[in-house]
Each structure stands twice: as structure tokens, then as C-alpha cells.
């Protein structure tokens, strides 16, 4: 197992390198250069050239790449072109945790809905609830999350008034536990919206996995020994059926962070997603590129964790 984990981490390094290369290529293909917006267009062409030279924009691409990557490693993504030249890292810091919280809420909803319903569906296939769950699965995968979000706001925020429609806190003066509750209250609708597609996917997976395991020989053996249904379910079935779910969660890690892009926009939630959309609309390239790097890193780390976890929980897995 350790061998596998080490090999998997070694693969992670070139992938991280590919990620930085593609982000660098994207950054270099951005039209204009930092001066086209920062400097007065009437400035003499020669001054312009001198500044370019001083900043190393005339160096060869590999040299520029090395310089860029070494500042990125130190957390320096440059300055925003739009937000009064604020540091990009500062902008991201302000919103980073909001997106993480939202992702966790979404994951929480996904798991508490998908796993029990998936198990129930598998234990009672073709029951009314199973049909209902299958229908829900189809709908959940077909509905665009922004449309679902709009409906959620329309029904639960505007008409029923149960949840706020936007933002993270309604009263900036509260703190402690009350603030926590208020934040949760604000995250319920976006969390459900973000978790919807995942819920539908997990439910399908859970159902087919449990059905698979229930039909396997060792479950029959366990039943033949006289084990109760309950024990068969908890001691044999779930342990094996949850393995693919755990792997999926690793992938979901990255999906949630980037999936937040549109959901956050619908709920006007101040996370990385809204920052990303605002920056693409404003052509604020330093922010866009930094976020690309972060989203990409999330996906890679998520995949890495999924693979490692997979090899830990399932000793049958050996890659050679």
C-alpha cells in the first residue's frame, strides 16, 4: 500500500506541473500586458519599453515561467487590475473559507439524503419510494443548478420566507453562536442547490452498489449462518458498498469548489465562484489565473486523496 501511495504522490507532481503550465499559457495569451491598463496611454513608447524590460516581459517564455512559478509558490499572484490594485491573494483569502463552508454544507446534504435513500431503494427495489428516488435522480441530473436555485429562491425565500435569498449574514453585528446559526441559515438554499447533482449521482451509485453486494456470495453465506438482516447490512454490505462512495467524495471535493461557480452567482454568495465570474467579466486576468490555479489544485488534490483513500479502505486494490 505504501508503495502505491508513494507512486501516486509521485504522479501528482507532474500533474501539478501540467496545471501550472496550462495556467501560464492561458495567462500569456491574455490580451495586453499589465501596463495597458496601469499606464497612461500617452506615455512615450521608450519608457514603455524600458518598463517592459525591467519587469522581464521581454525574456524568453521558460525564464518568465520560472519567475512566475516562484512568485506563485510564495503566494504572490500579483495585483488585481480592477479592485484598486489590491493583492490577488488578499482578495482570495477574503472569500476562500466561504466557498469551503458552502462545499461542506452541500456535501453534508448530499450524504444525509443520498446514502439512506440509496440503501432503502436497494433493499426495497421497485417500491414506490424507489421509483420516486429514481425519478428524483433523473430530475436532479437534468435540471441546471441555476434554474433549481432560482426556483428555490422563488419558493422558499420569496413566497414562504423560510430562508434568506442572498448573502452570508443578515446582521453584521451578531457574533459567536448566533452568527454561526445565521450563516448556516444563509447556506441552506445554496448548499442544497450545489449538492443536488451530487445527491442524484450518489443515490444511483449507492443503490446499485448495495444491490450488487446484497447479491454476492459472502452476503448469502452470512445470511445462511443466521445473521440478522440488520447485521448483514451494517457489517458486510455497507462496508463494501461505501468504498466507491468514498472515492466519489474525493472527486466531489474538486467538483464542489468549481461547481460553486454558478451556484454562488445565483445566490449572490461572496465566495470564490462569484469572484471568478466577476473577474472573467471584468477581464481581471491576474485574479482569473490565480483562481484557475486554485480550482485546478483542488481537483488534483481531490483525485489524489480519493486514490489514496481507496487503497487504504480496500486492501484488494493493488496497482502494479
Amino acid at each position, binding site marked *: 500500500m505504501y508503495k502505491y501511495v508513494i507512486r501516486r504522490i509521485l504522479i501528482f507532481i507532474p500533474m501539478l506541473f501540467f496545471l501550472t503550465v496550462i495556467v501560464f499559457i492561458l495567462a500569456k495569451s491574455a*490580451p495586453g500586458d499589465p501596463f495597458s491598463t496601469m499606464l497612461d496611454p500617452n506615455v512615450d513608447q521608450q519608457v514603455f519599453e524600458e518598463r517592459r524590460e525591467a519587469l522581464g516581459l521581454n525574456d524568453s517564455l521558460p525564464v518568465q515561467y520560472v519567475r512566475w512559478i516562484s512568485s506563485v509558490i510564495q503566494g504572490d499572484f500579483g495585483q488585481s487590475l480592477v479592485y484598486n490594485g489590491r493583492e490577488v491573494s488578499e482578495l482570495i483569502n477574503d472569500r476562500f473559507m466561504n466557498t469551503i463552508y458552502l462545499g461542506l454544507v452541500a456535501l453534508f446534504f448530499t450524504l444525509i439524503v443520498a446514502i439512506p435513500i440509496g440503501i432503502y431503494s436497494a433493499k426495497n427495489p421497485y417500491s414506490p419510494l424507489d421509483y420516486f428516488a429514481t425519478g428524483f435522480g433523473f430530475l436532479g441530473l437534468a*435540471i441546471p443548478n441555476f434554474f433549481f436555485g432560482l426556483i428555490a429562491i422563488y419558493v422558499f425565500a420569496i413566497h414562504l420566507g423560510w430562508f434568506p435569498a442572498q448573502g452570508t449574514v443578515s446582521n453584521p453585528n451578531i457574533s459567536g453562536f448566533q452568527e454561526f446559526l445565521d450563516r448556516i441559515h444563509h447556506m441552506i438554499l445554496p448548499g442544497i442547490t450545489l449538492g443536488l447533482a451530487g445527491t442524484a449521482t450518489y443515490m444511483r451509485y449507492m443503490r446499485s452498489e448495495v444491490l450488487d453486494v446484497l447479491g454476492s456470495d459472502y452476503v448469502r453465506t452470512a445470511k445462511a449462518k443466521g445473521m440478522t438482516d440488520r447485521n448483514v447490512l451494517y457489517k458486510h454490505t455497507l462496508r463494501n458498498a461505501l468504498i466507491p462512495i468514498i472515492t466519489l467524495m474525493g472527486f466531489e471535493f474538486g467538483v464542489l469548489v468549481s461547481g460553486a*461557480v454558478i451556484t454562488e452567482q445565483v445566490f449572490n454568495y461572496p465566495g470564490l465562484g462569484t469572484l471568478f465570474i466577476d473577474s472573467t467579466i471584468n477581464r481581471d486576468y491576474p485574479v482569473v*489565473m490565480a483562481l484557475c490555479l486554485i480550482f485546478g489544485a483542488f481537483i488534483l488534490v481531490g483525485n489524489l486523496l480519493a486514490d489514496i483513500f481507496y487503497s487504504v479502505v480496500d486492501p484488494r486494490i493493488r496497482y502494479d
Partner: protein
Amino acid sequence: METATSQPPNKNPEFNEFNSSKVKKSKSPFQLAFRRFLKNKLAVMGVITLFIIVIMSFAAPLLTDHSPTKTNLLMVERPPSEEHILGTDSSGRDIWSRLLYGSRVSLTVGFSAMLFTLILGVIIGSIAGYYGGKIDNIIMRITDMVLALPFLVLTLTIISLVPKVSVPLLVTIIALTAWPNMARIIRGSFLSLREQEFVLGARAIGASDFRIIFKHLIPNAIGPIVVNATLMMATMIIIESGLSFIGMGIPQPQPTWGNMLSDAQNIRILRDHWYAWIPPGFCILVTVLAINFIGDGLRDAFDPKSDRR
């Protein structure tokens, strides 16, 4: 799919099934798949629904007299009336007309993005899977590179690099970011197919690489290709509507279901004018659902083993 025959039908009812053209030839896998597909009620329903939507988008000029782009500032945000079945939007444009004409754009973008992605994916995946070795390695590293970024993030970034988005440009950008998944699927099936004896046989009689790929390998991998292409079209429609919703897709005034929904980001329209945003959202949902049913039906039809549900 059924082959037409000019011979009169056999009088003996027992032999009716063996129509003269099929006496020598048993049913092709395609015909078998087609039969299984027709038995799947949801899939057939999906085909009918999609057919109706396509017909309505073609017949848009017959179903409405209003222009989808003509603004009328005296008739802004009107509720549904006899003249405007679904009322008017914030620029006084007829919503029903925009819905009909918008379906053209949404379906065109969805279909052509799927087709373009499919072509790119098939070509790249075939080369990687057929030749293997070093070429495969290089192509797969490029694939990893494109897949290192989430699809939506990469697409949005590229869109932010271009000055103005149009339909062909959007389709190209989507295809350039979406091909890796298709390429991987095709590469995977080619890697196992190319070791089989019929490929060796074809090579032995001197068939060119091109012929082997197109005449022997692709037809054998057609099941997963068709299924994934179908499901991909649904994804493409969602992607286009999502991009247009946040204002980074097809720009106004050209209507698409996605940019019609973006009006609802205004909480006043969301609250007071349900007829402005529920219909386009519902259209996306129904179209995607129909395509997904067709895709699932095709999967079960091509692969009887997948019948696990």
C-alpha cells in the same frame, strides 16, 4: 434500420419473420439494439419529446408573429395577454417568440458543440488508442493537462480571453475544452480492440491504418461512442445555458434559453414575473431530460448486460 424488400411477403405466417432478405443474414447487432431501444418506454418518450421540440424550433415563424429581438419600450414587462402569450421581457420583447427562436440557438449550440467535440475526441482518441506507445503517451499527457482544470473554469477563462462571443466561437471553445473525455473513452476501447484477431487479419491482408480505424475499430466501439455523444449533447445544452445565464455565453439580443433566464437574477423579475423565467428553464429541463432518457435507452440497447436497474 429495417431493410426494405421488394419481394411479396411470405404467405406462411411461420416464415413471416424470416423475410426473404433475412434468410441468409441474421439480425445485425444494430437491429437488435434498435428493437431493445423501442421496448424502452422512457427512451421512446424522450425521442417523441425531442422531436416535438425540434419541430417547434423549426416552425417558430409559424407559431409567432413577433420578432424575438425587436424591442418595444412602451410594452416593457407586460404580463401574458392575448397578443403576447407569455408577456414581454424587460426590453419589451415578446417572450413566447424568444422562447421559440431561443430553442434554435440552444439546440444548435448543443448539437454542434457535441458534434465538434465528438469529431475531435474520435480523431485524437483513435490515434492514441491505435498507435499506442509514445504517441499515446504524449496525447494522454496533453489530455491530463486539459483535464487539470474544471471544464467550466477552463471554458470561462478562454471566453474571457476573446473580445466577443458568437455562436461558432462558443462552439469551438466548448469543443476545445471538452474533447478529452471523449478521447479517453475511445482510446480505452481501441486499446483492447486493436489486440483482437480481426484487426490482425485486416493488417495481414494489407489494410491501411486509416481503413482499420474507420472500417474495423470505430464500428466496434460505436455503442459507447453513440451513448456518450447523446449524453454529451445534454451536457452541452446545460453548459451553454449556464454560460449565457451568467452573461458569458451568447450575448443579447440573440435569444437563448440561458440568457432569457439571466433576467431572473433581478429579484424583482424573479418575484413578479414568473412567466419570464420559468418557461425557458422548463424548456432546458425537458430537453435535457428527454436527451438523457434517449441516452440511457441507447446504453441499455447497445449493452444488454447493463440492465442492472
